[in-house]
């Protein structure tokens, strides 16, 4: 009997966190399952839309951190 696949399983599969049995059931049956395909496509679209938002700390903040790491090192060694 095929393991029933839930949306939670698909979510874990999408993020590469599904267990091996679940992942192989999804992989083997994905091409025949329109519902799974559209859910995974939805997740992919969501991920690419939201991941465009990516900020970096400013250079002053980074310089302070690096200075602190250097000074701690000198202090410890």
């Amino acid at each position: 009997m095929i393991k029933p696949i839930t949306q939670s399983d698909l979510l874990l599969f999408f993020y590469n966190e599904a267990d091996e049995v679940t992942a192989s059931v999804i992989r083997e049956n994905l091409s025949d399952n329109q519902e799974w395909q559209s859910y995974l496509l939805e997740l992919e679209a969501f991920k690419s839309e939201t991941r465009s938002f990516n900020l970096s700390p400013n250079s002053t903040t980074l310089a302070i951190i690096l200075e602190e790491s250097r000074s701690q090192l000198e202090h410890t060694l």
Partner: protein
Amino acid sequence: MNAPIIADGVLIQRYMQGNQAAFETLLNRHRNRIFTSIYLLVNDRYLAEDIFQETFIKIINNIQAGKYNHEDKFLPWAMRIARNLSIDTIRSKKRMPVVVDSEGRDVFDCLGISVQSREDEQVNQDEISALKFWIRELPEEQREVLILRNYAELSFKEIAILTNTNINTCIGRMHYAILNLRKKMQKNAVKIK
């Protein structure tokens, strides 16, 4: 051929042995996801800079005091520190009185002191603002899982440990966060490229 990626745990060991470059590699590897996550949690660029700095100073102190014992679980450990500092900051900010003008507006808003960053300005304002707005609008628990999974890139298992819940709760929250966010974006015809 690409050079093999040195594991976080190895970089930490090297830093403890006096290799400053190892620490710089570690910082550069994780800075954006940790900073973006902090920013989305506190929703204020200046606070995010402070919390990010404080997070890494705690990280340095802990490493140099020999208190790091998480092997290659650096990111969940760093995110725990960042999340706790963010929560403390949000709590203390809530206790701070807001200074308003005669019309009840926050004076700092009127002075034009905003959370917008130079980076923000370079990207399409509408897209970024809309995304930030919809993330901010999510229920707190959904927003947190979304930020930790999508931006900090923690696994659901790591998020469950960090937020003191179970993995199924985290998956459920993520599912609803995605559903809500997509619905809001589509309803308002916001297309974020």
